[in-house]
């Protein structure tokens, strides 16, 4: 896809979501047009720019698991109760996140993106908050549909 800053509507939705669920971090990962790499294209509330250099590993960590399974994922108290190693969760480490809720973005019926909200404290995202994330993800799917080559 083209650079995200050419899509202010996408950025707007991420920023809005951060306010709506009053979380510390919002991240949007998308599969590259060429090749299978998935990267974090946009973040709000980030502490540093490590997310820009992270390539999501397929099947690993929050984002990688969501891309491979197509199901949402909740972490309430990282690194407790995780499956696999602490180092399988680079975005949690990079941004000092303790809790997160993340959902897949589907394009053409295939999970090719991740929308993640996170907090730097232990937390359980409420059903209302989860719904807000789900809705934002759907809006993003529509907005980005034209920009992801399928």
């Amino acid at each position, binding site marked *: 896809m083209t650079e995200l800053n050419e899509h202010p509507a996408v950025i707007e939705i991420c920023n809005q979501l951060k306010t709506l669920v009053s979380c510390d971090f919002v991240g949007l990962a998308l599969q590259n047009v060429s090749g299978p790499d998935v990267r974090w294209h946009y973040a709000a509330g980030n502490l*540093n720019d490590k997310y820009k250099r992270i*390539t999501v590993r397929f099947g*690993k960590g929050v984002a990688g698991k969501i891309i491979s399974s197509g199901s949402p994922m909740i972490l309430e108290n990282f690194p407790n109760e995780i499956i696999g190693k602490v*180092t399988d969760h*680079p975005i949690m480490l990079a941004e000092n996140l303790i809790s997160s809720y993340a959902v897949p973005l589907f394009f053409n019926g*295939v999970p090719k993106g991740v929308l993640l909200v996170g907090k730097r404290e232990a937390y359980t995202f409420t059903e209302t908050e989860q719904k807000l994330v789900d809705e934002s993800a759907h809006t993003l799917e529509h907005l980005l549909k034209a920009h992801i080559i399928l």
Partner: protein
Amino acid sequence: MDLISSKQQISSYIIDSQEEEIKRIALELHEGVGQNLYSILTGLQFVETGIKEPHMKNHLREMSLLIEKTIQEIRLLSVELHPPALTTLGLLPAVKNYIKLYTSTFGILVDLESDGDERPIPERKRIAVFRVCQEALVNIAKYADTSEVKMNFYWNENELKINIHDFGKGFQPVEPKDHTSSSGLAAMKERMYLTGGEFTISSKIGEGTSIQISLPF
């Protein structure tokens, strides 16, 4: 034979057999599983050319993409377990390869500098030094809360010195005998000791952590 050195021999034996096993699995993943998946991918791409229905074509393309992702992950897993460069090209190229993977995994930049001419190191020692560097970098990703690391190699007449500094939050190091729960640092020290080298760690809250490794030739 006294007790100490026989204990050391056992440790060395365990480490060596573990490394052998890791190497075997890494190779099996890369040459075996990876190659097979690659053959399947080529086969699928061939089948795709003979299919007309757009729906089926699309389905096949998604399957190919999934296999491509799996091949890539298998390759990364294999390199992580035992980088082929460590056996074929030597310590420095292996560390350079690992750093690339490390930056794309954790987003942490590593500035690597090497002074002097690289010297050949026996494989056992090479693996030990590599593992200690790897463990140091993993600790940094886990605990240091930093975006950059400085790594220096100094190849001297009779020893290799490596310095890893993380500019992170630092911590209060405890004597290895005092902490029984976490043994990563103790294991790094022991591993360098078993290869005839040395390992020291120093850390200052707010300034970061430094690790020094030395290996006599």
